[in-house]
């Protein structure tokens, strides 16, 4: 089939429109209804409070409350062991703990015996351990 220049131009334009339409269709149009207020209005929340209510803690909103309590209860230069005892724990628990508690250094359960602070998420059994105290959604051990 031989296309005239005129039809080549039309076909090229149609191809670009298909490409643009496919790209535009990847935009989450329905999300605009809740994104718009967040983008243009001050909501009175502190950066930490806003982060706690955002998509990042969608996997477990209570975890944000717990990490905030750990943050308040530990000095900025502390090393903290965070134990989130969930079967099949996904990496978001680790990433959120390390990021939220900065500039504290966060370590895993392997170092629980040697660090000055150990925080247990949603595990009251740790209250039986020496130096433990209850914090929001968990227990903190101070040595």
């Amino acid at each position: 089939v031989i296309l005239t220049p005129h039809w080549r131009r039309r076909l090229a334009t149609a191809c670009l429109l298909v490409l643009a339409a496919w790209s535009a269709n990847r935009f989450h149009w329905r999300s605009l209804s809740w994104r718009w207020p967040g983008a243009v209005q001050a909501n009175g929340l502190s950066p930490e409070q806003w982060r706690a209510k955002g998509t990042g803690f969608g996997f477990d909103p209570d975890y944000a409350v717990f990490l905030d309590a750990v943050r308040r209860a530990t000095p900025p230069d502390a090393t903290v062991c965070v134990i989130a005892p969930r079967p099949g724990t996904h990496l978001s628990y680790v990433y959120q703990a390390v990021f939220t508690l900065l500039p504290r250094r966060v370590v895993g359960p392997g170092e629980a015996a040697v660090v000055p602070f150990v925080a247990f998420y949603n595990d009251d059994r740790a209250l039986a351990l020496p130096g433990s105290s209850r914090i929001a959604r968990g227990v903190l051990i101070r040595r």
Partner: protein
Amino acid sequence: MTAIAGAALGLMAAVLSGLAASRRMLAGLSRAEKAAWGLAVGLLLQAALCLLLALARPGADFTLPLAVLSTLLILPVLRRSSATETALPPPSGSPFAVKWILVAAAAGVALFSVVALSEPMWVPDYLAVWGLKAKTIFLTASVPGRLFHDPETLWSHPEYPLLLPLDLAALSTWARGWDDRAPALLYPICQAATALAAFGFLRRRGRAVGGAVAAALIAWFFPLYAPEHVGLADIPLALGFVLVGTALLDAFETDTPAVRTRLAAAALFCAALKPEGSLFAVLAALVWLARRPRGRAAATVAGALAAPVFLHAAALRLARGPIASRDFDLGFLQPARWGQWLGRVGVTVGEITRADIAAAAVPLAALAVFFLVTRRGLADPLGHLLAGQAALYVLAVSLCAFGPAFLVETAFARIVCALFPVLALVLGARVGRDEALPP
């Protein structure tokens, strides 16, 4: 002053300082291109200032020094504001069409701005890699060794370069406090700069409509400009790719000190963002070596592209010592394991076909038809660069230590999407003959 206004001020300072520092290398470019280059060079300068202050006065608040040094860098722009603009070729085609296509592009940027600023950055890779480093640098006012050598955070890609974390830390300094939302303003600004770079380049080459089409395609490419990419390096990297691409196309025309400086600045910007950026700059050097016009020296342009990459890598190695990437198993490259590796390449291609190509079959078919029915454009040499980069991504995925499926699922589509703005430049150059569009 709100945090967003502070970040906006920081970005404005970055653009102005970038323009001041790169005045000579930007001579002859359109205003749109100058804005894009100003941002890229300004981000390099802001990161350099942040690093300098963190190293010189670790632990000290660097809000005031950063503002003072940025102002000093901006002064040359204020003094010479009457500099003459370069005369561009008169726009061909319908200025009306160009205007409306650009309005559509601006709408794309506005939509992504709403997305980027609607909530604090939260993507796992932001928390685990870019934001983690930026927040550490900001809160400690230093670049602590634990960013590179802490066994508890081996997943944070300690081997990655630090331009983005330093820029996010600098923007938080301008915002007067750590804030996970305000620095996100960088992302729609980078989107706008990428569209402007493509438009400005094609406009300068007399392809105003093609430039506007490229800008609109870029601004509306929501697979890249997506909420799950806010906080990552891919969106700024796409700007770097376009800057390398336009500077390389200029180098095919003429080899001047200004062009070579632009190539070096763009290569450094890419290399300092992500390893894919280094790869792109080195591949651009190879494309130049393979396709340079007859009689043109090989070393100058290739050197301008490759030298910043290797110097940056050497500086990083000296500063933080050796860091092995845990993502790739290079043992597959040994001749004894080539058979295994080939099998993995097959698995990789199969996974990509199943997961990504099938999902993008319609636009890929549209692209194929577009290339069949249009004539060669001035940006076609970038097609080799894109093909080479994509092929190397496939090979890299096949070497993944966690299995090819892992990287196909988590990263391949994202890193390929960052190449789209360069492809849009190629497409725009092909419709650049304004008569190619129907009335």
